[in-house]
């Protein structure tokens, strides 16, 4: 009789422990700093000191000195530093990078092939002095299966991200934040900001899948900051 009671207890422990253990060990959906806080302009930076107007009795504003430059059409050719590949060794992510723009509806183009990722070519490239270099890829697709960034949600603060550039240089980043954000309210103006501290923003899909829309509800966003000593 006692044996049966012990079996009851063992089964109940297992029934509770299995989901609890999964829940405790699954990758967290948010970690580190808020992804929109990196590179945000400091509030004091926006007010330049007002020029004191020394024009004694004149009611008209004083005029500063100005510099001029030739207005000839520039050829606009500049050496490119496009990224060509990205790797996150900690979670076995390795993918080729395509420069991408926007779709007709204004959303970012994501390479059709799920094992490639896209770099938003209108924003700064990785390795720039300022702004967010945005790289995004499919988490998966119905036809092709898991994508290059399928395991991105397992990334943790401190993980290394290497981006190889077309000129052979590698820019090294370290993850500082991870967040799952509802797509409908994705703060794209902040995530794609071309000013502020240099950073890498990785975006894929996450959260629950909505079969009616063939789409996930959320975006998983990871932000990383450059670390010194590019290899």
């Amino acid at each position, binding site marked *: 009789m006692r044996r049966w009671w012990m079996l009851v207890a063992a089964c109940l422990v297992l029934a509770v422990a299995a989901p609890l253990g999964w829940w405790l060990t699954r990758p967290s959906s948010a970690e580190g700093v808020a992804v929109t806080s990196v590179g945000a302009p400091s509030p004091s930076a926006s007010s330049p000191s007002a020029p004191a107007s020394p024009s004694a009795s004149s009611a008209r504003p*004083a005029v500063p000195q100005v510099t001029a430059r030739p207005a000839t059409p520039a050829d606009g050719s500049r050496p490119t530093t496009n990224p060509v590949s990205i790797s996150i060794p900690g979670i076995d992510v390795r993918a080729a990078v395509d420069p991408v723009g926007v779709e007709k509806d204004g*959303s970012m183009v994501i390479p059709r092939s799920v094992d490639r990722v896209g770099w938003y070519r209108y924003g700064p490239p990785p390795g720039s002095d300022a702004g967010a270099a945005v790289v995004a890829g499919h988490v998966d697709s119905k036809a092709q299966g898991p*994508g290059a960034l399928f395991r991105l949600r397992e990334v943790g603060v401190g993980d290394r991200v290497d981006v190889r550039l077309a000129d052979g240089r590698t820019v090294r980043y370290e993850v500082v934040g991870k967040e799952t954000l509802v797509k409908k309210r994705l703060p794209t103006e902040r995530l794609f900001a071309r000013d502020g501290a240099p950073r890498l923003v990785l975006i894929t899909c996450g959260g629950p899948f909505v079969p009616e829309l063939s789409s996930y509800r959320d975006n998983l966003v990871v932000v990383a900051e450059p670390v010194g000593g590019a290899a």
Partner: protein
Amino acid sequence: MRPLRVLAATGAVALGLGLAAAAPSSAAGTSDVSVLHGVPGLTVDVYANGDKLLTDFKPGTLTDPVKLPEGTYDLAVFPAGEGPDGTPAIKADDVAVPSGANITVVAHLSADGTPVLTPFVNDTSRIKPGETRLTVRHTAAAPAVDVRAGGTPVFEGLENPKEAKADIPAAKVSADVVLAGTDTVAIGPADLDLKEGTNTIVYAWGSAEDDNLDLAVQTISGLHSAPGGVPSGTGGLLEDGLPMPLVAVTVVALAGAAFAGRRAVLATRRG
């Protein structure tokens, strides 16, 4: 936003978005003002309110934008070294600079060849992601023109001192200027890199009669906006809830507990 024209003699002009309530002491706001020199063969000094703003300003050059406090300005252009007490080559009095505008004042020739000052208000509204803004301004002593990109007319029948503009997909284009309705090339072609999120302002300047027509280019960047979203998954393979094997383990364990519990109760009754 039509450009206002200032004749060489005198005349009051309201710059930009209407007359600023010109309380002179309230230096509340500023506007970004650039100056473009488009009068061939004349190196000048530019004065504003009697202060020298620019020295040895050469044709075909553009100033960096300068923040001018909101207020009223008397602008005068003198041949280099001759100001500010003589008769200016060009002048415009009581030019009202509003707050928060982006303005380019162009010294150029009118259609009949008279030097004039024309203030243009630059469109710095946000541009859709992936697009660029092309603005063209006719500031040359020349008849109406068409502006072509890659041989196709983009703007037609543009007259001095008017402007035309459009938001188009960002691209590198080969642009030229032809006499309106003809294939007679007046200027160019010139290669223009129309960058995303940037207003590229192209000026036709000079004089057709003197055969010195040319293009000047001003760019205003930072007008971009971010993409609307990042659609990056259609598979539904990502497990958001409890994985199936774990669900099975839990169900089997609960069933086992129920079974064992019944046996335990039965055993208790018997016992």
